[in-house]
């Protein structure tokens, strides 16, 4: 084990850790605002990576159909909700727009070959597919039970995850895929070669974290989301719609998830069910942050990335065991230092 190996492992750990940190942040965001543990977060990652790969490989992009189906379901539910509220069915403009948007995007991805459109366009189309998918998931599965006990929300999350993995198999097939790197080459720092994709991952992650910070600190919507996270009832009383807060947090989570997927797709082979294990490591990071603190969660996720990288070098067979065992001392420490403060839920 020499300096060069340490640097390479560290670089690997930072690349993965940055992705885990992004996922930890979005899991934390969704949890604090809606009390939903977003288990399907990983599916955003896998679906984004596989959609990119499908565009580049010239195979049919089927994600639009899922979005279309969910948007249509959301519209039906909106009509039904209006019926129960006002005694007559009414169509909201938003839900019609949603279905129209999904139909247009489905047509675009099915009819126009995007194989040569360039990485930037493909990434944009992918995010344009996944972000409304997050919205539709919230509308269809979570909004009707938004006030339920967190345990119920957790169980629904698991169900949504299992269903999405199954749909993923139908849409993308059982084989793994990977995409073209954004740029070739790399940057030489002394004796260590920095991989270009690592630089992309770190730069985009930092940019996104900065963007989130500005959004939450400076913008009205960001402050409203934070208010909903701090006290749901209080936020509702001062006029912040919990529905809007839920949808906004899901859209953000889907955006972060799809970006993560697009970033790691060139580094590794992604399968239709790869998302879960990746987001699970983000989740461990969020747990280290006590499901409350953003900076600690991000640091925790980076730590997971490093622990994973170095433990793989020493004992590759026990890697997952070591990474997930890390959560135990953290939980023990937290439960000893917080005397049941979280029991109120």
């Amino acid at each position, binding site marked *: 084990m020499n300096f060069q*190996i340490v640097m*390479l*492992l560290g*670089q*690997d750990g930072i*690349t*993965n850790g940055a*992705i885990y940190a992004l996922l930890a942040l979005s899991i934390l965001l969704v949890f604090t605002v809606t009390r939903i543990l977003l288990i399907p977060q990983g599916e955003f990652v896998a679906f984004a990576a596989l959609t990119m790969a499908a565009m580049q*490989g010239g195979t049919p992009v089927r994600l639009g159909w899922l979005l279309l189906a969910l948007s249509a379901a959301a519209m039906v539910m909106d009509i039904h909700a209006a019926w129960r509220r006002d005694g007559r069915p009414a169509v909201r403009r938003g839900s019609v727009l949603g279905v129209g948007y999904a139909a247009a995007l489905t047509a675009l991805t099915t009819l126009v070959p995007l194989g040569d459109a360039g990485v930037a366009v493909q990434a944009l189309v992918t995010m344009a597919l996944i972000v409304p998918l997050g919205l539709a998931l919230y509308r269809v599965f979570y909004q009707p039970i938004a006030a339920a006990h967190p345990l119920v929300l957790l169980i629904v999350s698991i169900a949504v995850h299992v269903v999405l993995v*199954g749909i993923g*198999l139908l849409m993308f*097939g*059982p*084989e*793994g*895929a*990977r995409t073209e790197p954004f740029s070739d080459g790399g940057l030489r720092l002394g004796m260590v070669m920095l991989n270009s994709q690592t630089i992309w991952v770190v730069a985009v992650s930092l940019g996104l974290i900065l963007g989130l910070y500005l959004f939450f600190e400076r913008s009205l919507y960001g402050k409203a989301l934070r208010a909903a996270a701090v006290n749901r009832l209080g936020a509702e009383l001062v006029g912040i719609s919990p529905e809007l807060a839920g949808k906004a947090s899901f859209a953000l989570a889907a955006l972060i998830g799809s970006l993560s997927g697009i970033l*790691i797709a060139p*580094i*590794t*082979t992604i*399968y239709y*069910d*790869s998302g879960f*294990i*990746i987001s699970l490591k983000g989740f461990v990071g969020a747990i280290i942050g006590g499901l409350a603190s953003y900076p600690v969660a991000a640091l925790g996720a980076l730590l997971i990335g490093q622990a994973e*990288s*170095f433990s*793989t*070098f020493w004992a*590759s*067979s026990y*890697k*997952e065991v070591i990474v997930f065992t890390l959560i135990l001392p953290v939980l023990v420490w937290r439960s000893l230092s917080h005397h049941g403060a979280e029991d109120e839920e």
Partner: protein
Amino acid sequence: MFAKKLAVSLLFGALAAGAAAPADAQVKVGVVTSSTGPIALVGIPQKNSVPLLPTSVGGQSVQYITLDDGSDPTATVAAFKKLITEEKVDAIIGPSGSPNAMGVIQFAAEAGVPMLAPVGTAAVVLPMTEQKKWVFKTTQNDDLIAEALLAHMEKIGIKSVGFIGTADPYGDNWLKVFGEGAAKRGIKLLASERFQRQDTSLTAQGLKILSASPDAVLIAAPGSSSVLPQTTLYDQGYRGKVYQTHGAALPDFLKLGGKKVEGTILAASLMLVLDQVPDSHPSKKIASDYVAAYEKQNGSKPATFGANVYDAGLLLERAIPVALKGGEPGSAAFRGALRDALEQVKELPATQGVYNLTAADHSGFDERGRELITVSGGKWTLVK
């Protein structure tokens, strides 16, 4: 005109119904695959191959009942019990996964139903026990493939090898079989690293192998997971020989690996290099017909896993006429006779090679069941 057509089709319909009338004596075969779940890449081509299996053997019609176990060994047990007690099948083809197969051997043996397992691990038929007598395996044993790779290593003068395998029974068995063979030939195993199919990075394993600097590296992983270790090694600057097992023998390997897998050596059945093997090879025509039929039906070329199920059908096609002398389909006597007949199959050419089954060897492949293949110019090429 229409009335005439109608009359003709009615007549044919009646004839067909008449022919199918003694259907109560037909042979029933259960098929259990993992067409969903983590090993769906194995199960889907297997499920798609079922419609290509022989539907009429020795004057008996054969009915196939297909179930999915979702890659879950518990569900495999449930599927086997259902097939045995409710459907009263005469034989079962499946399941797709090695752990799934290990869990159902005792149920097949207790009920006396021959089981044709298209799984990778040799543990389902070796060492032979009273229960495993009911199990037949339609894939090449790992040691047959390992032997071909080791012989090639010895030929080109490789003295030391690094090993990267999946942390599952597939990787375990390869490490064991390959380690033993390498020791016998005086090839040193310098490092052995493991990974999970879903790992996002294999940098650490690659570095470990690189720092041991072996002459060659063997990667033992099923399906497209075999690609990432090799591309990682390539990116890290490793330029020694890389060997792959028959787990890598699928079209996606080339698609995912691109120019980074150029020069890979692997041993597998002839399916990848069908157009290059001489016409005299006993499997060539059968395999070509299977690939063509599969492609016509599904629009894509089958992975080898599907051919393993097809071979099970060919074994049954050979054994059922013999077994019919032993009893009526649906009876215990018939199932016992079927097992005995399967064990007697000799020189049966199939898609994967030529089967010569014996009481001790329920896999029955010889060197005609493997070809040494390399990647050259982005295509599978037979090593001459």
